[in-house]
């Protein structure tokens, strides 16, 4: 078993954070995991993406040409990555920031108005967690409990007060996508 998720967007959209939540969740399930960022010289505002590979055996390549799932947080990421999703895989589109539809028909396309949903929870910074909740509800790469523990671990450094609301956001993303 191996699955790969690419999360792409602008710096500041919580792209690397989502990957880390998944990596922690995989660790809790005693799986092998690799989190690999694209790293650039800009400190702020550049594009950011990371690849999370989860497997039950020794992981070879930390990045693959055709990942099982790709999350695009903005339009440039959709344009860059849509064609790369493995057939039958998942393309998660943050429709709050993307003004076009996917063109592929051989993959699962999940459209999430993440910012609007986050605002319903009172904090638009929760958009990324909502996306993760939605993706995992469909792709089921990880157990929901593991992801919640992953959130807990990722927010453990002085951000504990954000934990409950992030858990709610994860649930909200999952609930939203099941009604679509």
């Amino acid at each position, binding site marked *: 078993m191996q699955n790969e998720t690419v999360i792409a967007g602008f710096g500041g959209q919580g792209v690397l954070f989502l990957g880390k939540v998944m990596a*922690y969740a995989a660790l809790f399930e005693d799986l092998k995991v690799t*989190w690999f960022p694209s790293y650039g*010289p800009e400190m702020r505002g550049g594009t950011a993406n990371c690849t999370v590979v989860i497997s039950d055996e020794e*992981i*070879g*390549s*930390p990045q*693959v040409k055709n990942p099982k799932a790709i999350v695009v947080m903005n339009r440039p990421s959709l344009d860059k990555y849509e064609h790369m999703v493995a057939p039958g895989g998942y393309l998660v589109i943050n429709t709050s920031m993307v003004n076009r539809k996917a063109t592929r028909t051989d993959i699962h396309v999940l459209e999430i108005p993440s910012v609007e949903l986050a605002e319903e929870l009172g904090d638009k910074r929760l958009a990324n967690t909502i996306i993760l909740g939605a993706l995992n509800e469909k792709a089921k790469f990880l157990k929901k409990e593991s992801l919640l523990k992953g959130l807990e671990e990722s927010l453990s450094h002085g951000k504990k007060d954000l934990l409950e609301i992030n858990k709610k956001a994860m649930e909200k993303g999952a609930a939203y996508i099941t009604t679509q």
Partner: protein
Amino acid sequence: MARELWKGNEAFAEAAVRAGLQAYFGYPITPQTEALEYLSARMPELGRAFLQAESELGAINMVYGAACTGARVMTSTSSPGTSLMMEGLSYIAATEVPMVLVDVVRGGPGLGTIQPSQGDYNQIVHGGGHGDYHCIVLAPSTVQEAVDQVYEIFDLAEKYRSIGVILLDGTIGQMIEPAEMPPMREIRKEIPEWAVRGGTGSNKRVLTSVHLVPEDMEVLDLRLIKKWQEVEKNEVRFTEYYMDDAKIAVVGFGTAGRIALSAVRTARALGIPVGLIRPISLSPFPYQAIKEAAAQVDHILVVEMNSGMMLEDVMKVVKDSTNVEFYGRMGGIMPFPDEILSEIQRIASGTTPSDIHPRDRWLKRMESVVDF
């Protein structure tokens, strides 16, 4: 100790701390800076020496000074910084004081890119600094291996009074993986016999690399080579995958090795009898393992993130006995497993023997991939 998530650069820094690191000197350079940052907090917390030097020249010579006292000492840098350290490394090799360098390799030449590469193979494995010397060079392919190798290489460096280098592709420095940290070792109390400590008269010690009498210099040179024979005898490391019945052997180290593993698995699933040899010690190089593989397989495919630097070492032992092929990506580009798989499939479907150097054949094939 349970597995925890570690970023490669921070993981090897902590591993060094646990190996009993007494002093660290470094200079910021992407993609290794997290190690410097990590140790800037961690070392003082333990009452150990940390200093951000004025340059890589400063850093390596601070390491040199500290190493002369017998302290466990390390620096880390990335390719352009490694170039600057070459002078110091040559002096340190000549003085035979142990130290550890972690080179988090990025694409070059020049300022190059900050993306991962294996372009420092030649400057680390085949010298770089002036004169006849060798470093012990290990190449990890995962964060856990980086941890284990850094933890171990201090012992190797001290055993042989040699330079220990971890050639860490930028990939491994920047990635996060689960790793288990080794236990914290006590700081070594005893001072090695050769180390300076303040002494006069018959206790006076001079650690120098100057030997103006050529006969004396030759004695040192010969002794260094003799010592290296011991290293070659004792410290060769490599790992193999699916080699038992392989007819094609892929050879790759570090990141290229692990990417090749993905390709080899897929090829195996397609019924191609292919295996993988991943050299772990690049110096000393696992010549014998390559030689034995060459006797077993019909083709050897060398995969690197450079233009075939290790390829030359492989070819040195394979000679004409087996067909050798090469595939590389450069400048900060990592190959996808699919690219290596295509190479394996191309080879498996039958290649005609050629007198043209594998690098030249690869370069020709690259013309259809990249416009250059």
